[in-house]
C-alpha cells in the first residue's frame, strides 16, 4: 500500500464522502478514505426511513439512498477507499496510524487530513437511573441496528426515554414491526427531535409523549419487567407522588449524541465546550493547520443535508490548503451571546474571503425571536425567525463585505422583542 496521500479522510459516512468529492473536484485527486465498517455510508445505512435530502435534492430519500448518491460520486472519481479499517491515532505531523486485517498496523503520511468520524450516542450511564443492569435496555441507535440491519426485534413492549430523533424514529419502526410503544418520556418541557418526527412517528400511531417526565426506576433482575416514570419540577427533579408505572420488556434511550473526538484529542486539537467538536474557522480548519473537521464529529446536525454542505466546505478548504499552502490566519472570535448554546464556526478567518454562514443552537424555545450578530457595539447582521427551539439548528449568513469590515470579535445573540 502507498504510504502517503495528499488528503486522508477519516470516516466514510456522509461527511467523509461529500468532503472527498468536493476536494477531488477542487483539484486534489490523491485521496484516501478510511472507514471502520465493511461498507461506506456510515450511520445512514441503518437509517432506512425517508426524509433525507429534502433540502439538497428536493426529494425524500431513505438513508441508504442518500448515501448511495455520494458513494457513486466517489466511485466515479476512483478515490481510494479502505473499509474495515480502524484509525488508531493522528499525530501532529499528519501521520495517520491505522489497522486492518490485510495490512496489520500501518501508517499513512498526509498533507491534509479531514476528520469525519461522526458521533455516538450518549449512554444510560450518563443518566444514573436506579435499577439493576437488566437485559432489555438499549440505546435507540443500537436497537435501530438490530432491527434494520440484523432483522431482529429487541422487544415487544417498549418505553423510550428521551425524545431525540432516533428514539422517535424507533418508536414508529418498532410499532410497524408489531411492538407496543407505551410512552416516550422527555425530561425537558420541549422535545429534542424534529417537529416532523413528532407528527409522523408519534401522532400517526397515537404514541403518548410525556414532556417534563423522566424514568426514575427500571425494574427486573435478568430482563426488564417494567419502568417507573415521574414528573419533574422546574429543576428537573422528580416529584414524589407523580409516578406512573409501565409493564415493559424494553427500554430505549435516546438522550442525545456526542461528537466522537478521541482521535482529535489525541492529536492535541482544541475542542469547543459548546459543540464538543473541534474549534474551527469557517473553512472548518481546526487549531492544527491542514487538519479539517466536518459533519457530526464537529457539531451534531439534525439534517444530513447540512452535513453534506459542511463537508463540501471542508473538502474545498483542504484542497486549497494542499494546492496553495498555508495562509496566515487573520481570525476573529465568534462568541455565544444571550440565549445561545453554541455557534459554529467559533472563528472567522478574514484571510479566507467570501461570505460566512454561522450555525447556532438556542438554549430554550423562543417565539418570533430576532437573531443579532454584533461586532463592538453595533449590529452587523440581524434575522427574524418564526420560532427557535434547541432541537433545531439555525443559521445566519454574514456577507463578504460584512466579514471584511469586522474589526474585532463578534457575538451572536437571540432576543424576543418586547
Amino acid at each position: 500500500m502507498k504510504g502517503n496521500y495528499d488528503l486522508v479522510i477519516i470516516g466514510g459516512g456522509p461527511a467523509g464522502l461529500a468532503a472527498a468529492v468536493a476536494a477531488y473536484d477542487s483539484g486534489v485527486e490523491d485521496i484516501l478514505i478510511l472507514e471502520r465498517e465493511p461498507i461506506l455510508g456510515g450511520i445512514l445505512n441503518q437509517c432506512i426511513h425517508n426524509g433525507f435530502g429534502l433540502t439538497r435534492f428536493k426529494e425524500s430519500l431513505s438513508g441508504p439512498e442518500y448515501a448511495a448518491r455520494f458513494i457513486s460520486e466517489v466511485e466515479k472519481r476512483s478515490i481510494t477507499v479502505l473499509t474495515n479499517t480502524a484509525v488508531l491515532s493522528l499525530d501532529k505531523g499528519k501521520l495517520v496510524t491505522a489497522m486492518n486485517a490485510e495490512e496489520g498496523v500501518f501508517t499513512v503520511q498526509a498533507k491534509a487530513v479531514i476528520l469525519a468520524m461522526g458521533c455516538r450516542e450518549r449512554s444510560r450511564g450518563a443518566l444514573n437511573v436506579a435499577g439493576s443492569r437488566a437485559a432489555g435496555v438499549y440505546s435507540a441507535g443500537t436497537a435501530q441496528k438490530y432491527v434494520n440491519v440484523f432483522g431482529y426485534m429487541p422487544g415487544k413492549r417498549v418505553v423510550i426515554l428521551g425524545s431525540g430523533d432516533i428514539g422517535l424514529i424507533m418508536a414508529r419502526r418498532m410499532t410497524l414491526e408489531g411492538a407496543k410503544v407505551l410512552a416516550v418520556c422527555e425530561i425537558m418541557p420541549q422535545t429534542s427531535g424534529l417537529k416532523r418526527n413528532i407528527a409522523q412517528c408519534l401522532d400517526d400511531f397515537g404514541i403518548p409523549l410525556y414532556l417534563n417526565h423522566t424514568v426514575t426506576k427500571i425494574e427486573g433482575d435478568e430482563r426488564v419487567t417494567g419502568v417507573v416514570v415521574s414528573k419533574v419540577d422546574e429543576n428537573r427533579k422528580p416529584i414524589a407522588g407523580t409516578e406512573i408505572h409501565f409493564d415493559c420488556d424494553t427500554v430505549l434511550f435516546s438522550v442525545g449524541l456526542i461528537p466522537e473526538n478521541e482521535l482529535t484529542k489525541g492529536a492535541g486539537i482544541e475542542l469547543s465546550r459548546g459543540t464538543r467538536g473541534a474549534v474551527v474557522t469557517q473553512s472548518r480548519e481546526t487549531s492544527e493547520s491542514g487538519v479539517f473537521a466536518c459533519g457530526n464529529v464537529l457539531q451534531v446536525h439534525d439534517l444530513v443535508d447540512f452535513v453534506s454542505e459542511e463537508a463540501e466546505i471542508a473538502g474545498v478548504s483542504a484542497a486549497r490548503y494542499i494546492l496553495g499552502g498555508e495562509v496566515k490566519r487573520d481570525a476573529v472570535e465568534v462568541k455565544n451571546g444571550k440565549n445561545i448554546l453554541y455557534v459554529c464556526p467559533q472563528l472567522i478567518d478574514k484571510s479566507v474571503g467570501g461570505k460566512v454562514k454561522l450555525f447556532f443552537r438556542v438554549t430554550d424555545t423562543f417565539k418570533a425571536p430576532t437573531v443579532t450578530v454584533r461586532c463592538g457595539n453595533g449590529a452587523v447582521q440581524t434575522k427574524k425567525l418564526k420560532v427557535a427551539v434547541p432541537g433545531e439548528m439555525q443559521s445566519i449568513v454574514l456577507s463578504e463585505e460584512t466579514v471584511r469590515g469586522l474589526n474585532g470579535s463578534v457575538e451572536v445573540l437571540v432576543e424576543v422583542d418586547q
Partner: protein
Amino acid sequence: MSSVKVICTECPMGCEIEVLVNGDEISVEGYGCKRGREYAEAEVVCPRRVVTSTVRSSTGRMVPVKTERPVKRSEIFAVMEKINAAGCSLPVRIGDVIVRCVSEDINVIATANVD
C-alpha cells in the same frame, strides 16, 4: 365548521398549518409554500405516508425497502404484513421492485444496493 392543525412534514421548516373545513369547502392558512398547502389539504382529506421497512434476502441480509409512493395511512399495517411476508434474492439495486402492488398499484422497491 372545524379546524385541524397540521404540521407540514414536507421540509425541515415544519410549518404549522391550519386547515378549516366548512362542509365541502376547505381553506388553508399558515403554509410556507404551495407544497405545504397541498400536503395539509391531503392530511385532512386522505392522509398518505411512504412506508419504509426491510425484507430478508435469501442470504439473510436485510434489504431496506420503501413504497414507491405514499400509501393511505389507514393501509400502513396491511402494507407491513405484505412486506413482512416477502423475501428476495440478491443482488438488488436501488429501485428494484421487491413486492408488487401492496396497496392500490403501488410497489415496494429496494432503497439500497445490496450484493
